[in-house]
């Protein structure tokens, strides 16, 4: 078995198991903790709609905070949207997903994907520079922040290098890319990248608690 076969086969498979099992473990570990009922008389209805409302609204910044958070927020948007596009709208990725999902969807032209991928990498680097230089971020950052950054940027960079080749064989570069994706999948459930799924729980919880009070969300 060569490196590419290993990457496409056992590596990706094991990574997928860990991604699913780790995520379920983390979500269940949180949901299984006790929760006290709230007996206070609600001002207005809360529930699932309130959760959905805040899951949506918190994607945007409230105007009093816009000036102060504009720079990191813009970078974060570029990085997230770039990642979404690269992962889900790059034609070879769609073909890969079709392999086990059985259906496909339209993708974006390669040049657009390449541009978005580069933008995401640049934004990621700018965010790292900010983390290393801003006094608040320096204080609150730990291993998870830096390793999660690496685990996210590594597959992006290896993917972008495939068409460039830089002296390696296509197969070798593809194998490294797939292995870097496997690393991302393995790490995702454990550290801060878990916000991929936790964001729905945290925002949703706040929506349910504060909307029933009629308080600001």
């Amino acid at each position: 078995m060569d490196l590419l076969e290993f990457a496409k086969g056992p590596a990706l498979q094991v990574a997928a198991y860990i991604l699913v099992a780790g995520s379920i473990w983390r979500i269940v570990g949180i949901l299984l903790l006790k929760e006290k009922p709230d007996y206070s008389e609600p001002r207005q209805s809360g529930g699932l709609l309130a959760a959905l409302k805040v899951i949506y609204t918190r994607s945007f910044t409230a105007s009093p905070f816009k000036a102060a958070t504009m720079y990191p927020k813009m970078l974060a948007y570029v990085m997230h949207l770039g990642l979404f596009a690269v992962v889900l709208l790059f034609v070879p990725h769609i073909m890969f997903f079709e392999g086990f999902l059985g259906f496909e969807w339209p993708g974006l032209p390669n040049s657009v994907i390449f541009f978005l991928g580069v933008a995401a990498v640049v934004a990621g680097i700018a965010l790292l520079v900010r983390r290393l230089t801003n006094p608040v971020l320096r204080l609150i950052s730990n291993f998870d922040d830096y390793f999660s950054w690496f685990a996210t940027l590594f597959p992006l960079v290896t993917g972008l290098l495939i068409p460039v080749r830089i002296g390696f064989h296509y197969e070798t570069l593809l194998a490294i890319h797939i292995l870097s994706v496997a690393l991302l999948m393995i790490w995702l459930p454990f550290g801060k990248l878990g916000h991929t799924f936790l964001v729905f729980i945290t925002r949703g919880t706040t929506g349910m608690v504060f909307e029933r009070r009629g308080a600001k969300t």
Partner: protein
Amino acid sequence: MTTVDGRHEIDREAERLAYKPPEIRHDKQGDMPDEERINQAMHHFVKNFNTQTASYLDGCLHCGMCADACHFHVRTDDPRYTPIWKIELFKRTYKRQVGPFAFFYRLFGLKRHVTIKDLEEWQHLLYDSCTVCGRCSLVCPMGIDIAGLVSMARHGMFKAGLIPHELHEVAKTSAETGSPLGISPDKFEERVEWMADEHDVEIPMDVEKADVLAVMSSIEINKYPQSIAATAKILNASGETWTFRKDGFEATNFGMLSGNPDWQKAASMQLINAAIKIGAKTLVLPECGHAYMALRWMGANMYGKPLPFKVMHISEYMADALNTGKIKVKKLNKSVTYHDPCQVSRRGGATQAARDVIKHLGVDFREMEYGGDYNWCCGGGGGVVTIKRADPLRHRVFKLKMDQVEKTEADEVLSSCANCRQSFDDSQAHFNWDYTMGSLMETVAENLEERTS
């Protein structure tokens, strides 16, 4: 050649040349050994970990944006005042002891155990430099309610005997006497009689059956006793059967502020029992922010089931009485701005009530820039105004409030919280500031129109 004492840094932000104060006091209550303090803190941190807190503590991205929403950080640029950093020990304990991957954290020593030195340091962060105003909770992209976590982290600090002496003292007095300032039922009655006399208003006391139970905060009873008369005038004018009770008059809840759920429950139950005893349909809370949080949103949970009466802040009661025509007020010819008490507006959801009242007063209302739910806190909430050693920091933070008020160029600033009022008065004296905070309730009481029917 002289040598400069380098132990204390020069504070270049201060208005006059000054050295930064020496290292902050670390107060300790009781005489338990340090090991026991750590165990107590851990145990009572862990008691607060439920699905809600767990998702919050697991969800932080370390983006640091909460620092931009916190008045303590904005005014000092001290990274330790980043809201999420204030609950770092609470977060660390969660990850080590309870989180889904706690086993790995402990096995590989990924999160170190909390030490007594950590806890001492965090006393300043959890008490002196957080008013639980919840502004940070609104900026968090993950929607984490950081202020709520600070309140819970205080539970562990209290049980470990690691809270500021002043706050402990008032909380203890409150638990022992029923009032943080030691106001006995007889003293309350005395004050009520004095105010009835002074303001020529009828004030019912200890009525056996009444639709409304009114309660006061000790700051009002002690420092702003005219509030008692104002409450009476408004309730009389609205034609309610109402009463004060000597067995349930104190609305402040220092059990909640200091972090002792037992004392918090005892204080809430005192009011709940009094209201049930007289068959009250409504309990009207005074101009006090945290009293609203304690009874309106946490009272039923202390009681263990829904409350058999409605809980209203006085601003909500006034808005309702004005909107339904139960009371009427004269129009005032002046411009007014309004300071929102965080626990009533941002965190309590009653933001509109005060604005309804102000509309009836017919004034030229000037909303502060980012007023209402995004208002800057007075700096004295969450028990901070009680802590003497926090005064310099609190005054520094108050500058934001001063700017916000001054920009409106209003004739007068009103609010509906005696704790904010105390904080405003103190800072006003400190800065020789032109604005004196007025009470929304007293303004209404002074301008009530005589009932014609």
